[in-house]
């Protein structure tokens, strides 16, 4: 009988880890480790934020969207910007899990689970906004095509209807993919949990997984199939979201560039959020051996590449405004540079174009602190980009008589911070209830690197 495999060390897993060590380490976070003071503090702080968010929703439903700073002509404000921002963030998880799986990128293994969780939570946060932002949110289901005795259907030419399908499909497939990938780990937790209720709960969730060879074979082919299905969704979701704007005739919205530009931006913000989460996670649970500097380096490289796509988008948008000779487009770009929202725009350029250039330097790519700061900057920059597109384009459109500026009210900020808080709370709950790193896949990695 050969000795159990122990990792010899590689770019993606430090040396000295055996199968049991990996399982102990990851399952231990969920099953045995007592919550630390930081976690408890963060949990209650974000829970308070979540409850405040719910209360704010109550006020919003009671009073109406007039609470926000939206107006004529800027009828869309933070809600739509936040929606696009969160959807974008939700891109990285599926990209990491599905696309990198198909491309056989081993470094995805230790980050895919929490990245997928991030995707789900971000998509959930995003999905709330289109409902919250409605004038009459209680009728949101009218966008859904359902057999109605009045024979009324959605208006199929509207990209908002396409959006519904794009987002709900994405949410569904992402959730399935996440859950399917987690089945062996749930079984592991079931087997290791001591409390009966935990065994029952994990057992039910594990759907009777026994680790048979047949299970593994089917699991792997199902996982690959789902990855294949999820891959085009990575492209389609944000492409469709971008059509919400591109179909519109507003200068600053109306551009064929939008689908690829939005997908690039989505991956950019998604990887920024992966880093924003991975670095504190690694620190808090001492996962440096699983999430190595190489992981950070790779993620940073993707950040650099997608950042270049985004920068190219900005450049093309500007170029076409002038090259097309369309005076409305031109005026929109000049206003972007010099108008009331110019500080937002230039801060966005700084965060999304200028700062990421530091990533050409390997030392920055390997420095957790620098990467964390940079990831936060990119998160901010991408949020500013969404706000700029949504708000700045609208505030100065065709008729100067109708121009007007949007300024956020306290409620606008509450609804942004509320969603961030809820996202963080969900994530805090996730890391304590489910394995944040895939146990089974890490064990495969042990085998491969031993």
């Amino acid at each position, binding site marked *: 009988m050969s000795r159990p495999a122990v990792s010899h060390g590689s770019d993606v897993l430090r040396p000295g880890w055996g199968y049991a060590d990996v399982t102990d380490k990851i399952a231990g976070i969920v099953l045995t480790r007592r919550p630390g003071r930081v976690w408890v503090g963060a949990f209650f702080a974000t829970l308070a934020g979540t409850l405040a968010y719910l209360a704010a929703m109550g006020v919003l439903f009671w009073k109406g969207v*007039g609470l926000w700073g939206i*107006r004529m002509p800027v009828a869309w404000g933070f809600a739509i910007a936040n929606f696009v921002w969160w959807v974008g963030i939700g891109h990285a998880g599926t990209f990491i899990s599905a696309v990198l799986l198909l491309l056989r990128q081993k470094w995805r293994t230790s980050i895919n689970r929490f990245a997928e969780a991030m995707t789900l939570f971000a998509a959930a946060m995003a999905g709330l906004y289109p409902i919250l932002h409605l004038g009459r949110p209680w009728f949101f289901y009218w966008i859904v095509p359902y057999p109605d005795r009045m024979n009324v259907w959605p208006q199929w030419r509207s990209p908002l209807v396409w959006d519904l399908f794009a987002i709900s499909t994405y949410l569904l497939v992402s959730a399935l993919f996440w859950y399917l990938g987690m089945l062996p780990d749930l079984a592991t937790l079931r087997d290791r949990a001591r409390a009966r209720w935990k065994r029952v709960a994990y057992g039910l969730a594990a759907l009777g997984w026994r680790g048979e060879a047949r299970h593994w074979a089917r699991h792997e082919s199902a996982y690959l199939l789902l990855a294949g299905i999820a891959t085009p969704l990575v492209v389609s979701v944000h492409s469709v979201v971008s059509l919400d704007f591109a179909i519109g005739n507003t200068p600053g919205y109306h551009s064929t560039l939008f689908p690829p530009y939005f997908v690039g931006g989505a991956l950019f913000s998604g990887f920024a959020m992966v880093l924003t989460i991975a670095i504190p996670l690694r620190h808090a649970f001492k996962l440096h051996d699983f999430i190595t500097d190489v992981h950070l380096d790779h993620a940073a490289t993707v950040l650099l590449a997608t950042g270049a796509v985004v920068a190219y988008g900005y450049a093309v948008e500007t170029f076409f405004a002038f090259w097309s000779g369309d005076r409305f487009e031109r005026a929109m770009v000049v206003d972007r540079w010099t108008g009331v929202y110019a500080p937002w725009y230039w801060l966005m350029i700084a965060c999304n174009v200028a700062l990421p250039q530091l990533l050409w330097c390997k030392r920055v790519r390997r420095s957790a602190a620098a990467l964390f700061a940079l990831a936060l900057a990119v998160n901010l920059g991408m949020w500013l980009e969404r706000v700029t597109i949504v708000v700045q384009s609208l505030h100065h459109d065709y008729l100067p008589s109708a121009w007007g500026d949007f300024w956020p009210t306290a409620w606008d900020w509450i609804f942004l911070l509320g969603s961030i808080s809820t996202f963080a709370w969900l994530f805090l709950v996730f890391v304590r209830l489910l394995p944040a790193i895939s146990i089974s896949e890490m064990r495969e990695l042990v085998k491969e690197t031993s």
Partner: protein
Amino acid sequence: MTAPTPTSTTAVLRLHPHAGITRRRLLSAMAASMALANGACSPPSRREAHPWANLPEAGAGALPLYYATSFVRGGYAHGVLVGTQEGRPIKVEGNPAHPASLGATDAYAQASVLQLWDPDRSAVARRRAAGAPPGASTASSWAEFEQAWRARPRGGLHVLTGPLTSPTERALLAALLAREPGARWHVHAPGADAAAAEGTRIAFGRDARPIWHLDRARCVLALGADPFAEGPGAVRQAMDWARARSAARDAGALPAALLAAEVAPGLFGARADRRVALAPARIEQALRRIAAPWVPEAGTPPATDPAVADFERRTLAALHGAGADSVVIAGPDLSREAHALVLALNQRLGAVGRGVDFIPPPDAAPDAGTLAELVDALHAGTVVTLLVLGANPAFESPGALEVASALPRARLLVHAGLHVDETAALADWHLPLSHAYEQWGDALAHDGTASLQQPAIAPLYDTRSTSELLALLADDPQRDGRGLVRRQWQRRTRLGAAAFEGFWQESVRSGVIANSAFPALALPAARVAPLPASAPPPLVARFASDPATHGGEYANNGWLQELPRPFSKHTWDTPLLMGPRTARRLGLGTGDVVQAEVFGRALRAPVWVEPLHAEDVFTLPLGGGRRAAGHVGDGVGVDAWPLRPVDAALAPLAITRTDARHAFATTQKGFSQEGRELVRTLPPGAALAAEPARAALYPPFASPVHAWAMSIDLDTCIGCNACTIACQAENNIPVVGRDEVERGRAMHWIRVDRYEGTADGGSRFQPVPCMHCEEAPCELVCPVGATVHDSEGLNVQVYNRCIGTRFCSNNCPYKVRRFNFLQFSDKTHETLAAQRNPDVTVRDRGVMEKCSYCVQRVARARQHAERTGVALVDGDVVTACQGACPTRAIRFGDLNDPGSDVVHAKASPRHYALLGELNTRPRTTYLARVEAKE
């Protein structure tokens, strides 16, 4: 009949004297009881109810029933047709038979219907106990007032009214005054142009009032005047001008030259070919130089002013060119001597009898005293009883008169008015007056035409008309308003009973007494007085009534408060206006709060720097800062009345800045077209290049039967805002309030955009309703199909399908869509619900709305045509904005009718689509403005 079984019911029946009651008898008794019970539901009408004596043939709920009556403002009648539905007056149209209207109205007349339904209207007589503080009155009754009136201390009766033209009221007032020895009548006309009246006396030695015929003039020079906005004949003057301009254009002739020298921007100056902004003293100097060739005796003209030399040169050329077809109009900013000079100039030009006629002033009251004389009498203690009828001197009076402190010196102060206003607060008795649309009455139009008032609804509250009140006070045996007016006209016409009945029916039906305009006066050669040569103070204030609330009279009218003022587009405010160079010199900007001081009286007011305003002069709008207007008008703006001098329109002003800032609620921020061809202009006779046809992605909608469309003529639009209010009244458009306007949520379905015009400060107005695009961008993006095309080409909004994504508004290049961000329509005030048009949905929060081309009027006309079997003809559908427009700039009709007005308009060489390059194919299109080439 068998004996009934002894149940409780039959036991009751047995007690009845007719025990043998039958089923039939029981049912008839029940029916009779029901009828009686119904009769007890409301108190019996106090007097005859005329309007509904015979239900109209069309029946309730179908065609609105119109009553020809008069809306009285500043004493003058504006002929209107009050449209009622289900017995409720909901919309006012102009009376085509009335000389001041000819079918059009101004914004005030449109808003008058909201005044009728104002929840703050006074509903009951109120008494203030002796010694009670001002405003501490308690509800009383007319009966108690009658007792108090009979027991009043005798002698020393003074009556204060506003300008009064009503023959009936004046006869009754004369009768009341005749009964009381020593009784005196005083007239306070806060908005009247005293200098003009005095100027007429200087020139002609008598009182006279000019009637301008702008349709006959080929050159109109306005000096400190706005003939399109000021005075009781403004609507008619604008209409005359527009009609003549269109006729000249169609004939290929040059339209009349309009020239304006004005202090603050006015509607006439905006439309003028040449305009200068000057302080009043410099306007007078310019006048002297311009008038010198015709009126040499006015003295040596002052030295040339290089800034206005070009304007004067062109003006002289135009006056010489037009000769007798010129008119020169002077306004309240000029002195009486300048007015006399202008009258002489008109006479020498030969304009009298052509472009201008003079008539005796319809509101002349030679035997009446002034407010100042009343205050003197109050201080002298000779006023025992003071009756204030429909005036509010405690607010609308120059501060130096100290009216509010003088009024309580009357032993008995009786106030009658629509509201418990500032004067009512001081009064011992307040009596609620009926609204114009609730009463019988009469008044004269600007040209003296007698106009009748008839009620469109029974009084909402226990109110009396002014005539009825005067009859009560004078103990007249006739107390009924209709009887009083009939008696007056019977006496005046001296017709026999049968002939009078015919005359009366015809006059009530049409709203005017036929051929009752005053004949033109034959006037002597005008004399002029030397113009004051003294140097004017460096900084002067002029007082002008706020163009929306009419000096505060309509301060409680939300529609008017929220009406964007034509030039600044601010709402809910009365800023102090000044020119840009003056502001720079004083280091002031828009929104700075200053302390303004006139003769030791100070006021804190926010500054509005108006680029079109003259330098070295400040305009203080009158009408803000009401203290007892009602829940809408209280505390809106600042009150400049305390600063106004007693006998002058101008006063030296000292200004000091404070640290405070003020935010204005405006509906338009920038006035530059940014190089975009939005308001297109053409030289006379030129044509616009045809738009190229563009392909569309989706197949066009078919409009096989009717294809409604609108055309707006920017050449005749004067930016008066009547369309905006007409639309608001017709379509139940809510008032959102100052804060929401500031947040960019005003709800007007048709807004009037203003853009900077020529270099000399002209303005170009552009009304923007929904364009009803054939390739509507809004329809494409609505996820639930809440905005769709109908079979007649209308872009309709389905309120109950709308979920409020607001994508349609984002995608509307014209930004004409309005969103109910919050619950904007007022559901708390019951009377406001009664004003609402029953054919138009009241929108709640969360839905989008916009101009519907008055789809309810389209449907009404179509249904009427179907019912009567008479095909629709051009003009059967008139949208609210079109109906109100004084210059008939808005035309609406069927594109499938080749003879329609709108088809004709769209064939014009001036025709263009706003943002046509976007290929939205709007059904609302524009006719370019004609501007003479420099």
